């Protein structure tokens, strides 16, 4: 299968967006849904074909056993200067090809799942079903465009595009104030991050004079123009700003852009709220694909980050902290989607940390020799996490669809009623907890190995977070499916949902079981060469043991209804409350945006404008007016007055002239 078919992979969703968006209203719901799924199916098949061809075909992309980037298509889109050109291209390299698979798989599952999930809303036919499918197609297009980008600017463009599709989908239930608020928040927070991304691009392009990742002839490999960039930066080495090199600033700014999309602390606040969107959307965008865009971005620029250790340290610290922070919050959430959202944040932080330790543990020279375990692990985890997290979200969606509530108080004991969902959820939990042979074990193990190589402290910290992960995931699982008998309402019994919703669960469950055996270290490495790794039994054993401890703890506390959780809650009420309120980050943001920016900046500026600037103009007008009124008194219309003045004037002139004559 020719690699140029990637164009079709990207183009079909775009076409579907316009087609469903413009013609959907006329077509009716069923037809729209089926067409959407069919379109996505074609895209998925093509994407698989392209990815398999890229990885396993012996096309021109493999040189000496090293996979190079292939630029399929790269026209100019926006020429800033003769050399600085933003292009709209399609490039395939290992991570792009892997992402194609991830995105199309999840998107396909979500398209199918939505046929059932979106057909009704609390029993009423869902309004805007067509709009939903159009937006899904738009998102898929944007995300695909993002991963196949040939240059930094294109990534930025698609960052914006996914931001907007995410906005539209979070705000899908646009009559609900919470959804509007959440969508607005998501957009603005990521927009703020994108501003930093833009600054990073500006600085980087200013010093390197290019946006491109790859050399023009495409085959030469990943870092050719980047190497040029490195040289440029090194030669501009004196360029510093506030004590750090401009490169460090640029890369940190770009990371902030990625952190916004990937919900790193402190820009994570939008993600939990984004759960106001329909659950399939949460699964697609806010668990599997869009939120890893930041990780993807850092991975894409990995060769640059390798040079600039300072930026990597920042990422490392932010990632490690976020992983723990989000995991801690996830332990106490009662809304299952929010708990999953925090779990997502934590897992993405794992990937970020993994990338960061990978760059920082090695010097530049070793990297060139082809070592980059953390990078590979990160991408591997991205892949597996997408699968099992999407699975977990789709399960959550099925549950919510069945009980019409997000709160786990309304669930409990659902295992009896929804066995398929329960098993699928369990697979997901095992995978995320890192129990072999499920997918998560293999990827997380690699991450931990990479962390231990960076330093013992980093490894222990991340292992602890991994244990916490196992604990909170099983807490959620038990609270949903066990704990106590479900209070069955007579009018409807919760049950496994229609086949369109169940089939994706089964497929994703199966993938979660086997995804760990994908030979990722052969396929996805930062320089394209195969990476020879073997299981580090010490680390693996430790992490499995920690995970088991976490699961055991969760079992003790939450399997059967008991008083232990309440006791714990009372014992650590301060901590519990803080975690439950997400350590008051939202309140802090609320304070800054509303009290500081809105009340202390916008309102005074508007006041200043009306009263001062405008007032000044009005003052000018009034002064003119008043002066006119004043002068008007002279034009009294009284002839006698005029004559008097006339005579006096004449006399004055006479006197003056006489005086002049006398002098």
């Amino acid at each position, binding site marked *: 299968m020719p690699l140029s078919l990637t164009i079709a992979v990207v183009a079909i969703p775009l076409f579907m967006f316009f087609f469903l968006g413009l013609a959907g209203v006329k077509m009716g719901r069923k037809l729209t849904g089926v067409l959407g799924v069919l379109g996505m199916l074609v895209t998925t098949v093509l994407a698989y074909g392209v990815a398999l061809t890229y990885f396993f075909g012996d096309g021109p992309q493999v040189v000496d056993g090293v996979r190079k980037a292939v630029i399929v298509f790269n026209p*100019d*889109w*926006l*020429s*800033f*200067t003769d050399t*600085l050109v*933003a292009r709209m291209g399609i490039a395939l390299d290992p991570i792009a090809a892997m992402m194609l698979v991830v995105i199309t798989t999840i998107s396909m599952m979500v398209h199918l799942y939505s046929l059932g999930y979106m057909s009704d809303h609390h029993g009423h036919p869902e309004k805007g079903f067509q709009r939903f499918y159009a937006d899904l197609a738009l998102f898929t297009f944007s995300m695909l465009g993002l991963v196949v980008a040939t240059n930094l*600017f294109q990534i930025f*463009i*698609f960052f*914006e*595009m996914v931001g*907007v599709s995410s*906005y539209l989908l979070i*705000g899908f239930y*646009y*009559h609900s*104030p919470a959804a*509007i*608020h959440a*969508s*607005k928040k998501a*957009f*603005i927070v990521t*927009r*703020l991050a*994108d*501003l930093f991304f*833009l*600054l990073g691009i*500006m*600085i980087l*392009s*200013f010093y390197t004079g290019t946006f491109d990742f790859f050399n023009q002839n495409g085959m030469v490999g990943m870092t050719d123009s980047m190497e040029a960039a490195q040289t440029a930066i090194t030669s501009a080495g004196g360029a510093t700003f506030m004590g750090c090199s401009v490169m460090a600033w640029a890369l940190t700014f770009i990371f902030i852009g990625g952190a916004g999309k990937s919900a790193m602390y402190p820009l994570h606040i939008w993600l939990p709220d984004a759960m106001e969107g329909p659950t399939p959307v949460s699964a697609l965008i806010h668990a599997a694909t869009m939120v890893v865009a930041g990780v993807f971005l850092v991975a894409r620029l990995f060769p640059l980050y390798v040079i600039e250790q300072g930026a990597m340290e920042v990422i490392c610290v932010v990632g490690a902290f976020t992983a723990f922070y989000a995991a801690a919050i996830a332990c106490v959430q009662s809304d299952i989607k929010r708990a999953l959202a925090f779990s997502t944040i934590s897992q993405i932080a794992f990937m970020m940390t993994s990338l960061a330790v990978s760059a920082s543990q090695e010097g530049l020279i070793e990297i060139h020799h082809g070592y980059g375990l953390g990078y590979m692990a990160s991408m591997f985890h991205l892949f597996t996490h997408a699968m099992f997290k999407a699975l977990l979200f789709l399960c959550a969606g099925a549950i919510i669809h069945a009980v019409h509530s997000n709160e786990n108080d309304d669930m409990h004991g659902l295992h009896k009623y929804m066995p398929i969902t329960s098993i699928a959820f369990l697979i997901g939990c095992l995978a995320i907890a890192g129990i072999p042979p499920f997918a998560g074990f293999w990827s997380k193990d690699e991450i931990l190995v990479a962390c231990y190589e960076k330093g013992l402290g980093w490894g222990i910290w991340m292992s602890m977070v991994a244990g916490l992960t196992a604990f909170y995931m099983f807490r959620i699982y038990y609270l949903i499916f066990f704990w106590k008998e479900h209070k069955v309402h007579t009018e409807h019994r919760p049950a496994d949902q229609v086949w369109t919703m169940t089939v994706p669960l089964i497929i994703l469950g199966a993938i979660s079981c086997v995804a760990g055996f994908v030979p990722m270290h052969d396929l996805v490495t930062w320089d394209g060469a195969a990476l020879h790794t073997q299981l580090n039994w010490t680390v693996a054993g430790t992490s499995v043991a920690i995970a088991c401890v976490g699961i055991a703890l969760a079992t003790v506390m939450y399997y059967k209804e008991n008083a232990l959780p309440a006791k714990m809650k009372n014992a650590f009420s301060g901590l519990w409350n803080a975690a439950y309120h997400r350590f008051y980050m939202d309140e802090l943001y609320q304070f800054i945006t509303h009290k500081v920016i*809105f009340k202390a*900046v*916008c*309102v005074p*500026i*508007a006041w200043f*404008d009306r009263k001062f*600037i*405008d007032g*000044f*103009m009005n003052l000018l*007008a009034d002064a003119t007016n008043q002066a006119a009124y004043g002068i008007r008194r002279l034009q009294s219309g009284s002839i006698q007055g005029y004559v008097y003045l006339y005579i006096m004037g004449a006399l004055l002139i006479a006197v003056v002239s006489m005086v002049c004559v006398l002098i």
Partner: protein
Amino acid sequence: MEILNNILIYFVIVPVLTLGGLALCNNKGMNAIRAVAATGATVLVALALWLVCIFLQARGAGDTSEMILLSKVSWYAPLNIELALGVDGVSVVMILLSAFIVFAGVFASWKMNPLPKQFFLWFFLLSTGVFGFFISIDLFTMFMFYEVALIPMYLLIGVWGSGNKNYSAMKLTLMLMGGSAFLMLALIGIYMHSAPQGQPLTMNILQIAQNNAVPHDWQMYLFPMAFVGFGVLGAMFPFHTWSPDGHASAPTAVSMLHAGVLMKLGGYGCFRIAIYLMPFAANELGWIFLTLTGISIIYGAFSACVQTDLKYINAYSSVSHCGMVLFAILMFNQTAMTGAVLQMLSHGLMTALFFALIGMIYGRTHTRDIREMGGMMHIMPYLGVGYVIAGLASLGLPGLSGFAAEMTIFMGSFQHPDMFHRVFTIVGASSIVVTAVYILRVVGKLLFGEVQNEHHRELTDASWDERFSTAVLIVCVAIIGCFPNFFINIISDSFLPVVKALGNVVGM
């Protein structure tokens, strides 16, 4: 007359003929008025497209002269006043923009009432001025057309406006006239020094630029006058306050034309007259105006965040976006200036679209206060979707025009070697976040959420003329957004002479 062979003159003749046609119509014969107005506007669009073809052909054929389609007729020899015509890439795209906005404006005022004939008469007189301004390269003729474009605004707002229209019309006219007064002084000053000692003076811009004879100390006085004169129309802080009131009171089509085209006269004039003819002072004093425009960008955006009247929001947003135009022009490099023109195009179309939609919504709900509206998406989905698209264009969604323009500006500005300019670029760039805040705020309140007023449920969606008018603008916005390089190729080379002139100054 030889000048009649030049296509440019028809951009003035066609509106004037339309004026004549309208004058013959009966005020009650709505269909005749519409037919004449629509025909005039369509011919203008056709002419503009043809002009683009001619321009591309000329450039394609290797004609690299600064302006093409040059021709002139002497008007008043003692003062060397000529009707001199000529266009470069910037004028061409501006003419194209104006033609489309006039076209959309005619359809947006399809049901104009009362006095439709008089409305369209003034409307076309205004467009005569606009087109005349863009095609002339003679200082006096430009100024004359500039005034022709400004004056009808008073009547259009004062008679057909809404709300506090007398105040707004008076304020707008007086402030713009105040700007014109400065401008006239500057133009006279330039004319007096348009040629070296002993040679005949000239009003022709190309000639003046070639002579480059305005003494430096005079430039230091004339440049601020010219820049402020045009800057008032370009809504530069602190001379922008006519804009919120004026837009709020103006009828739909007038808001469209005003924000869409008239405000562009300011940016165009700043570049064509102030900077091009007086590069020395531009280089020396640029930083002052750069600071002011930088303030405009941020200030307009923050002010827009707390407004509750739809038109005020847009007016302040225009202050921010037009500030960006002047900001980019003052960066003195080709990329940023190209971005400025793109931004003019983008802002013109997008704001016209905004005002058209606001006018349509206002025509139904009879309120523009966002606190009294909500859930419009349920009631009028077409207008709602249009508004969202306009909003996304405004906050810079790739694929719509705003993104390409802003990015060109920021990327170009950041290429400036001076740290001051680069830091200011960052300040300017931060407006994209604030823009998102106010756009999403208004979209959230106006379109989404629950319906606030039960009477609104009975309102209808857009009629065919409204749909047509907005669709034209949306398509234009999308075309610029999707194929920016097409426009950049037309515009970009036009800035070479200016950049060269500025470069000479810096070199000295």
